[in-house]
C-alpha cells in the first residue's frame, strides 16, 4: 500500500508503548496493531484526532505517502 504508517517511530520518540496509547485513547491494542502494521484500510477522523492529541503530533508525522514505483 502506498500509505505507510510511522506510528512506531512516533511512539518511540514519545517513549510510549502501544499499550499505553491504547489505554489513553480508548482504542483496542488489536486495532492499534492493525494500524501500526499497515494492514488498516481506513482511519476515522475521530480516531486520528485522538491519536494526534495524545501523541502531540500531526497526521503527517504518522502517515507517509510512498508512490508504488519507488
Amino acid at each position, binding site marked *: 500500500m502506498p500509505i505507510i504508517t510511522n506510528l512506531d517511530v512516533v511512539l518511540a520518540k514519545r517513549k510510549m508503548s502501544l499499550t499505553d496509547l491504547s489505554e489513553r485513547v480508548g482504542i483496542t491494542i488489536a*486495532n492499534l496493531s492493525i494500524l501500526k502494521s499497515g494492514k488498516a484500510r481506513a482511519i476515522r477522523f475521530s480516531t486520528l484526532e485522538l491519536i494526534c492529541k495524545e501523541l502531540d503530533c500531526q497526521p503527517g508525522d504518522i502517515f507517509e505517502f510512498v508512490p508504488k514505483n519507488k
Partner: protein
Amino acid sequence: MDNYKILKVTKIILNIFWYLQLAVVASIILIGLLLLFDVDFIDLNRLNGFKIHFSKIIFSDPLIYNGENYDFSLTNGEGRLHINDLDQKFVYLRMFGALIDSIVYLMIIHFLRKIFESLTENKYFVSSNGMYIKKIAISIIFLSIVPEMIYYLTDRWIISTIELKNVIFKNEFNFEYQTILLGLLVFVISIVFLRGIELKEDQDLTI
C-alpha cells in the same frame, strides 16, 4: 429448527449426494474400462443400447382402430437403439458425455459441501464461500453447453453411420438457455457476495 440444525441436516444430505454421485462416476469409469478391455462378463448387448432421437418413424403396417386400417407414424421422440453383436463406438461416446456430466455435478456438490462446512463453522462472509459460489456458477454454465455438444456430435456421427429404413433421425443441439440463465444468476450473486466481503473487510480494518 434453528439455523445451525438446518445447516447440519443439509450438510448430511449433501454428503449422501456426494457419495452417490461419486459411485456414479466410478461406475461409468469402471464400465468403460471393462468394455475397453473386452472383459467376458460384460455383455455390450445388455448395456441397454444408446439413446437416439428421431423426427419420424414410418410404419408399413397400418394402425387398426375400431376395425379400420389407418396409416400412422411416430414423430419427435427418443428411444434406445439396441444393435446386437456390433462394435458400438457410440456407447463410448455417450459414456464420455455422461462422465463429463457426472464429474461436473460431483464438482458442484463438492463446492456446496465446502460452503456448508464453512457455514456450520459460523464463517459466512469469507472470500472462499464467494469463490465456491462463482465456481458453481461456471459449472452450471458449463453443464448446459458441453455435455449437450458431445451428445450433438455423437448424434451426428450416428446419423451419418447408420441407415434405418422408415426412420428419420433427428440431430439438434438442445440449447438450454434456462440453465445458462440460472448459471448467470448465480454468477451475479457471487460477484455481489465477493464485493460485500471486500466492503466488510474495509469496515473491519477501519480504525
